[in-house]
């Protein structure tokens, strides 16, 4: 891992919200070598209307470390000038942001692949767990891991 590569990775684990536009601007302002920026925003869904909030638990220290490891692999695989990951923890209401990935590159396919790779590995390897809180005041279930998320990793082999 070169210093240059490491310098371009930013990982933030935080309770507060983020703004994708502000993050894109911060990464691209006064730069003339970035032709493509791909962002992924993951939001809290509630399709049947029963959810009051998701509570995101994380493993402090390891969450940052694991996402940095995933980001370093992405930067080794594709020519990314920046890779930013923000993951929230705590209670998150339906419709609110959970995670943001911003991948910058001179070329669009690298930016798409870098962001998509990062999300696939973050889903299955970053130490976060979601618990449902329901509108009726009860504490719902811990969200189960999806086989489809493990499956998604295979395309990067």
């Amino acid at each position, binding site marked *: 891992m070169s210093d240059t590569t490491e310098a371009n990775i930013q990982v933030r684990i935080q309770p507060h919200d983020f703004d994708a536009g502000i993050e894109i601007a911060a990464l691209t302002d006064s730069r003339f070598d970035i032709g493509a920026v791909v962002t992924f925003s*993951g939001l809290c869904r509630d399709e049947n209307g029963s959810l009051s909030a998701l509570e*995101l*638990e*994380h*493993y402090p*220290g*390891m*969450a940052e*470390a*694991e996402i940095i490891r995933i980001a370093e692999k992405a930067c080794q695989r594709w020519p990314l000038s920046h890779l930013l990951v923000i*993951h929230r923890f705590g209670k998150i209401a339906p419709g609110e942001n*959970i*995670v943001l990935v911003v991948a910058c590159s001179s070329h669009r396919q690298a930016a798409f692949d870098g962001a998509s790779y990062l*999300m696939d590995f*973050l*889903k*299955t*390897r*970053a*130490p*976060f*767990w*979601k*618990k449902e809180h329901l509108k009726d005041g009860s504490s719902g279930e*811990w*969200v*189960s*891991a999806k086989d489809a998320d493990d499956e998604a990793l295979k395309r990067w082999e």
Partner: protein
Amino acid sequence: MKVLYFSWIRERLGMDEEELTLPSEIKTVGEFLAWQKNRGEEFEAVLEFPDVVRVAVDHEHRDHDETIGDAREIALFPPMTGG
């Protein structure tokens, strides 16, 4: 050694961390889980299906057949659901 518990494992055990001194014969993650399972009813329930329990040693994922080494911190948690 610090041992951390997360998510429903933390809830079922009723604690988020503890200090443990492991018997010297425990070398692998799997041996550690087998030893933990004998520590009482709650541990037995949590480790009924040890394959679903994920383990990190000093902030890195470890498979059950890997060694623990001289770890400062071990964490047990279910499969992750972030993102």
